[in-house]
């Protein structure tokens, strides 16, 4: 049966997760990364309202940990990752410093963007991680990065992560057309969580068939059950390998689900948009639980090891909060300098000065023609 949100909601507990030839260290690392991301989001979520210190919209990604965890093991330091409003998982995946994420959300000067961007627009250029809250915008920019890599033959790849909602935008299809035409080293990762805010994909698109849509544009596409972390790892690994060999672009559509409100820690079910039984299906198929089952079966994880891991993560999170809360707020020094760069070292180096000659004021303007 073709994978889709409709078929998934009819199925039960997912039993196909297999470690196969996955190295144990990789499997454990996938688990660890998912758990770290989950606990971090849970902690931010719990603190969000009580403190009123994270004064920016946050789109939590609880339930969608598999893709970020898989990406985190596969991306190289000099690859570029572009993401959207639901940015934390991707920030995490690119290995950008989490304490700077916390500080950014707290609006502090030590934040990744010194408090200018907040959660939904965060970037960490040192880690080549960029995001932004206008749907599909960062997808378009990723095309340029991939073109840069291709023209300069650097071997780097670009990855763009986004939701199925972004594919409503025309901008997205310009990206498909051009990257397919140019065969760019570019990986598109769609986390299809069925909804754009409260709007079901099938309210916005005739069918749940993004992969079918992109293929005729010259973009290779694969859909997977996105809560199976080992499968996500294998799929992304294979695609990224092909991209590095010049065989691009590719798209991976991962079916997954967001447990919380679209934005913020509230429950937005008062808007009554979720299908009955759906939340239960997805909680039952939590990506962390699915992998944990298998790891325990295989004797790769036990209660003691998990408790150690939880402790380590809790310490890390506490340190991140501490860093953020103890950091100073930014102060405005110069609005101009925050927006414009007046230094121009390259122009200084390459260009001379010249004196202006005499523009003849009496000459005729260009004879205009039709084209």
């Amino acid at each position, binding site marked *: 049966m073709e994978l889709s949100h409709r078929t998934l909601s009819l199925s039960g507990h997912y039993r196909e997760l297999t470690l196969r030839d996955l190295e144990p260290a990789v499997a454990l690392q996938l688990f660890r990364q998912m758990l770290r991301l989950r606990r971090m989001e849970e902690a931010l979520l719990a603190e969000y309202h009580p403190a009123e210190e994270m004064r920016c919209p946050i789109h939590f990604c609880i339930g969608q940990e598999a893709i970020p965890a898989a990406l985190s093991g596969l991306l190289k330091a000099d690859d570029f990752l572009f993401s959207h409003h639901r940015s934390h998982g991707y920030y995490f995946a690119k290995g950008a410093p989490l304490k700077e994420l916390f500080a950014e959300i707290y609006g502090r000067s030590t934040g990744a963007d010194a408090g200018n961007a907040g959660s939904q627009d965060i970037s960490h250029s040192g880690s080549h991680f960029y995001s932004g809250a*206008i749907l599909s*915008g960062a997808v378009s920019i990723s095309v*340029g990065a991939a073109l840069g890599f291709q023209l300069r033959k650097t071997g780097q790849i670009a990855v763009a992560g986004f939701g199925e909602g972004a594919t409503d935008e025309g901008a997205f299809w310009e990206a498909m057309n051009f990257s397919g*035409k140019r065969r760019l080293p570019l990986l598109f990762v769609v986390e299809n969580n069925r909804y754009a805010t409260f709007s079901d994909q099938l309210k916005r698109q005739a069918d749940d068939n993004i992969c079918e849509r992109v293929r005729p544009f010259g973009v290779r596409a694969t859909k997977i059950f996105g809560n199976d972390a080992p499968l996500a790892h294998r799929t992304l690994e294979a695609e990224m390998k092909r991209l590095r060999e010049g065989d691009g672009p590719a798209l991976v559509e991962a079916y997954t689900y967001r447990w919380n409100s679209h934005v913020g820690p509230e429950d937005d079910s008062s808007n009554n948009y979720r299908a009955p039984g759906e939340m239960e299906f997805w909680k039952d198929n939590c990506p962390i639980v699915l992998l944990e089952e298998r790891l325990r079966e295989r004797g790769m994880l036990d209660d003691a090891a998990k408790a150690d891991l939880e402790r380590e993560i809790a310490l890390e999170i506490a340190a991140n909060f501490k860093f953020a809360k103890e950091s100073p707020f930014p102060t405005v020094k110069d609005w101009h300098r*925050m927006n414009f*760069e007046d230094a121009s070292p*390259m122009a200084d180096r390459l*260009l001379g000065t010249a004196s202006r000659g005499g*523009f003849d004021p009496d000459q005729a303007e*260009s004879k205009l023609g039709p084209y």
Partner: protein
Amino acid sequence: MSRQLSYAKAILEATDQAMGLCPQVIVLGQLVDTQSGIFGTTTGLVGKYGAERVQDFPVSENLMTATAMGASLTGLRPVIVHQRLDFMLYSLDAIANWLALWRFKSNGKSAMPVTIRTIAGKGWGQGPQHSKSLHAWFAHLPGLRVAVPATAYDAKGLLLESIFSETPAIFVEGRGLFSMTDDVPEKPYRVRFGQAVIRRQGKDATLVAIGSMVPVAMRAASLLEKEGIEVEVVDPRTLNPLDRKTICDSVSKTGRLVVADPAWLSFGAAAEIIATVSEELGDRLKSKAARVTLPDSHTPMSMALEKEFYPDENDVAAAVRKSLG
């Protein structure tokens, strides 16, 4: 030695030199790789630098802009070209939601040195979808520089400056200027943003002229000279940053201000210039400020209407005379 070059050729030379100086410079645009080359401003570049660096782009203006932006993050210095400013409107999301705020959003850690060339159409029945001139829109956005070169000299120097500076730039060219010539030095040189030029000295009134209104203003000044009126013509050359000081200094000398702008009257660049002067010298003006612009109307195709739509030197001269009372 002085060498005359047309505005179009000055743009071509600037691009050619930039590509020669720096292998990171690339050019993207519909038809940039053709013989006709966007009014001759890109002709021959593809032969010299190859189809990777001089790329015909699909008719996808939004993506073209974003592509330049992403490419700039990898170290390239893209120049993109729109044959008409109107086509560029598909890319305003990329410009206003991303390009303009990229540096800000990263707290200055990431830059996008992208240059966007765009041509404001005029004349010969271009009609309402091929003649818009929206430099005031771009100048309203923080984080972007906006050049409105009126002469070949400035076109070359400002284009080179745009390509090799760190802040993204919108470079607005006037279709009526392409064959006009000027002394243009051969070497690659820069014209700085935010430095207006006094094209003609005068004591009776300040006439600030933008882009393709500069030659018109100069002709108006010649007309007025015959009547004994000495007009100081100021060409701001760039709108963001805007050289408010040179403008205000001139008006504080003459006490009178007329602004000629090849764009719609209301909420345009002329208003900004008048407001600037009013803030600095408001109680010291000798007469009311005036604007000579397009009417608040879309561009009619018929030549009978075009004639009335576009202001000429007589309209400018009349406004100056009126401000002199």
